């Protein structure tokens, strides 16, 4: 057979690798900043674009899409051509992908601190950036699929299966969850509302973890672990079963983010059982990773690359067991809204994604630059800093989550909440926040050491721009049966993956949107007034949802603390929903209910926004002086009402024209009340709108 010569282009891998290291450091430094902001609430010094609520989304987006994203592309562009014995389909598409992706990251880094956000977690970016993401993603997918088409090996390897699943699923998730109607260039409202929006969002959010943080990294594991250990994959059969089971089951599990909420029981149950059924498929990946190292454990002791892989895969095994446990209602009753979740995701991010990325980088850099790693000792130091950093991060937060949750739920013998004031439960766990920041510092120190090591290695070598290889042209033999058959048909494989990941979403969404009694109507629930709507947009802009939930769960402890539990019908005008996922501060779903247990007067809120510690001495909430100072922009109020009407919110015909007038009237009333209490404030300040919104929260069902 005649051998054909071709090249592997290393330029793209190199670019993505440097981007991984750079954005990784940035994303983690932002994370460290918000960890310190929780300890020192005045750290942001009244600067809006440094405040926790605005940069927490920057941290999550940067780590997920910039660090892990670039990491996955580094490995995909390195391994795909080698596994398919061909060069990538198009260098140009690769370049467009790289620079497009970096531009998107820069756009995120600018817009999120400015408060330009949709507020749906890990999907915060506004619609123009969403469109850019979709386009760049298609460029990536096209390049991947066309490379498979022009391959020289008959069958596609398991790593590529995972890349395919990543491409198709992320495309579907991103598009479906980002369908928004624009108000302006930087503002849009999701077409879904309330509990339905929440279901779509957590279908997306959970599967962003599954198909952005997990499947591509399993693909990387299937390439780099056997390469680095020079060992065969433990079980091909296991690869098949765990791949298909994983992608089919994962997509169903989103509702476990909404256990004990206004989501109907049947949907919650799907979230529970599909999460439990995911244990084995997830562990299939762990087994295939770890058992591939059988016979090579002596190498693991010496090689920092393999050590990192082992810890990474072990962290994967731990968090994919913990995840299903957190999806059991009894465990979730304790864990949800606490730091337990934060600890859980960081075992995944710091352990699995971090360690696999670092191991891959230490393996790749010497090969890309045809040299030896500058210092194995420094790499080992990085390994230990990362491992201990992860433990110092996670263990205190597990303790914090557990402690705080038990305090929230504790009653005295007489039947009163033992800790009725939320702040007591915060003060109790503050020492754990110090330890977490310490753990984060260790972890980042490790990354900085890696940067030095990588730079020194790069300097000592010479970049290998292209690597030559040769292989005979593709010849399909007809005798393939079973799974071998679809491995030789990449387009069919892609379609089958798409079908596998569509089923779960369809089964959950169709009844939720079509069957009316899933969201029972409550007649007293009315649309927000224009002022409240503007206030709500400030709430969204400031990322209040990053610390305050708006979902009172059906527990005695929550009903006593916050008021009646949240009903699905109360959320029907919430584009987007604001349930939140973490209670660093108390739930606000019934903040406005005057007869409720947490009501505060307007003047309290005013003082609290200006200086939270004045009202609650030990509060860890930052001050919001700019909301007090800024005048409310009512330029797009009418447009907002119109967009809401398009979305089915029943404002009267032509109300948009009257909206600003109504807004001013309501604002004047609130401002007058504040002035009567001795607070010097003008009618047109943003804080008035925010107070209007806060005082509306949860009140509709109490109206007669």
């Amino acid at each position, binding site marked *: 057979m005649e051998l054909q010569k071709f090249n592997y282009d290393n330029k793209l891998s190199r670019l993505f690798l440097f981007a991984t290291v750079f954005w990784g450091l940035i994303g983690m430094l932002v994370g460290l900043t918000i960890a310190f902001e929780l300890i020192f609430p005045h750290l942001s010094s009244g600067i809006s674009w440094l405040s926790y609520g605005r940069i927490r989304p920057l941290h999550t987006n940067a780590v997920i899409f910039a660090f892990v994203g670039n990491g996955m592309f580094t490995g995909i562009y390195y391994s795909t051509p080698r596994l398919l014995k061909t060069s990538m389909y198009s260098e140009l598409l690769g370049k467009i992908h790289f620079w497009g992706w970096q531009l998107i990251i820069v756009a995120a880094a600018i817009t999120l601190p400015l408060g330009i956000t949709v507020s749906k977690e890990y999907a915060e970016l506004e619609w123009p950036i969403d469109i850019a993401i979709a386009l760049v993603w298609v460029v990536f997918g096209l390049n991947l699929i066309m490379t498979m088409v022009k391959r020289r090996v008959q069958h596609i390897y398991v790593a590529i299966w995972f890349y395919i699943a990543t491409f198709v699923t992320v495309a579907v998730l991103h598009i479906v969850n980002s369908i928004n109607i624009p108000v302006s260039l930087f503002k849009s409202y999701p077409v879904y509302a309330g509990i339905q929006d929440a279901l779509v969002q957590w279908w997306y959010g959970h599967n962003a973890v599954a198909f952005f943080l997990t499947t591509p990294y399993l693909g990387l594991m299937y390439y780099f672990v*056997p390469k680095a250990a020079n060992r065969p994959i433990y079980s091909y059969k*296991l690869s098949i079963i765990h791949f298909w089971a994983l992608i089919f089951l994962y997509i169903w599990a989103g509702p476990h983010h909404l256990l004990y909420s206004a989501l109907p029981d049947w949907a919650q149950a799907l979230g529970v059982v599909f999460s439990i059924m995911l244990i084995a498929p997830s*562990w299939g990946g762990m087994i295939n990773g770890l058992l591939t190292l059988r016979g090579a454990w002596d190498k693991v002791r010496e090689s920092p690359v393999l050590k990192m892989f082992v810890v990474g895969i072990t962290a994967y095994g731990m968090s994919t067991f913990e995840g299903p446990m957190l999806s059991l209602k009894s465990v979730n009753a304790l864990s949800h809204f606490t730091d337990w979740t934060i600890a859980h995701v960081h075992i995944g991010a710091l352990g699995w994604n971090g360690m696999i990325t670092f191991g891959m980088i230490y393996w790749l850099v010497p090969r890309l630059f045809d040299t030896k790693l500058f210092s194995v000792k420094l790499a080992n130091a990085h390994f230990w800093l990362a491992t201990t950093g992860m433990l110092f991060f996670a263990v205190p937060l597990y303790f914090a989550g557990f402690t705080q949750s038990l305090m929230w739920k504790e009653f005295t013998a007489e039947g*009163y*909440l033992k800790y*009725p004031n939320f702040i007591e439960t915060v003060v109790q766990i503050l020492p754990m926040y110090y330890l977490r920041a310490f753990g984060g510092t260790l972890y980042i120190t490790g990354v900085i050491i890696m940067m030095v090591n990588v730079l020194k290695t790069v300097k000592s070598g010479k970049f290998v721009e292209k690597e030559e290889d040769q292989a005979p042209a593709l010849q399909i033999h007809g005798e393939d049966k079973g799974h071998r058959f679809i491995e030789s048909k990449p387009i069919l494989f892609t379609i089958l993956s798409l079908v596998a990941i569509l089923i779960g979403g369809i089964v959950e969404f169709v009844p939720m949107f079509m069957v009316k009694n899933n969201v029972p109507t409550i007649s007293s629930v009315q649309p927000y007034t224009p002022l409240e709507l503007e206030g709500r947009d400030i709430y969204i802009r400031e990322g209040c949802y990053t610390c305050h939930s708006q979902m009172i769960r*059906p527990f005695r402890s929550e009903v006593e603390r916050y008021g009646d539990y949240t009903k699905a019908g109360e959320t029907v005008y919430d584009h987007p929903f604001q349930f939140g996922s973490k209670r660093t501060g108390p739930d606000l779903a019934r903040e406005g209910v005057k007869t409720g247990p947490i009501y505060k007067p307007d003047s309290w809120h005013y003082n609290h926004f200006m200086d939270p510690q004045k009202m609650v001495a030990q509060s860890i909430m930052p001050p919001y002086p700019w909301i007090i100072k800024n005048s409310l922009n009512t330029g797009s109020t009418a447009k907002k009402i119109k967009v809401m009407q398009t979305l089915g919110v029943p404002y009267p015909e032509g109300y948009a024209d009257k909206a600003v007038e109504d807004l001013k009237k309501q604002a004047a009333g609130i401002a007058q009340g504040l002035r009567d209490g001795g607070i010097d404030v003008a009618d047109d300040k943003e804080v008035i709108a925010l107070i209007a919104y806060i005082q509306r929260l949860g009140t509709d069902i109490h109206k007669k």
Partner: protein
Amino acid sequence: MTTDKQPIQHKDADYEIDTLTNDRLLKDHEYDGIRELDNELPSWWKWLFIVTIVFAIVYVVRLWVFHADDLVQKKEFDKEMVDAKASSAAKQTEVFELKILTDEVSLASGQETWTKICSVCHLLDGGGLVGPNMTDKYWIHGNKIEDLFRIMETGVIEKGMISYKDQLSQKQRLQVASYVLVKLQGTTPATPKAPQGDLYE
């Protein structure tokens, strides 16, 4: 590229054997030097998967067909509330004489409640902020222990004072009212709020 090892051919001609583990390598499975073994699924893994699937089936059948009490959210909640009512009957039945408490233990408990709850609006030293100054001799709703006790029960919602009858027991309310009258009255706070209400001598 990096395949450096020639596996030994065994008697079984269809397979090569991995020398380090004695497992069979799959023929024709080589990707950039990566080989795959023909190992079966670990049986404990298969069983784990089966058990979770059985769990799933049992779970949804219990909920969707039998509407099990521990799985239907509304039933669970109602039961929790009924149980709570039964176990904390004391909340309704405790009876106290409305008299200022002067013992240090009660006053210390009163101070604890003040710090946890009341200080949010009246400040730690009682100087007042959103709520009125509790250290001076001016009172909006009266200065007797009954008055303070009553306001904590009913609240003054138009001013932002909520009812604490579901959050504080009668005993706790009595203690904190006593703390105000015995300990806070007559002290000098750092930033006293201007007098509100009528002067009571």
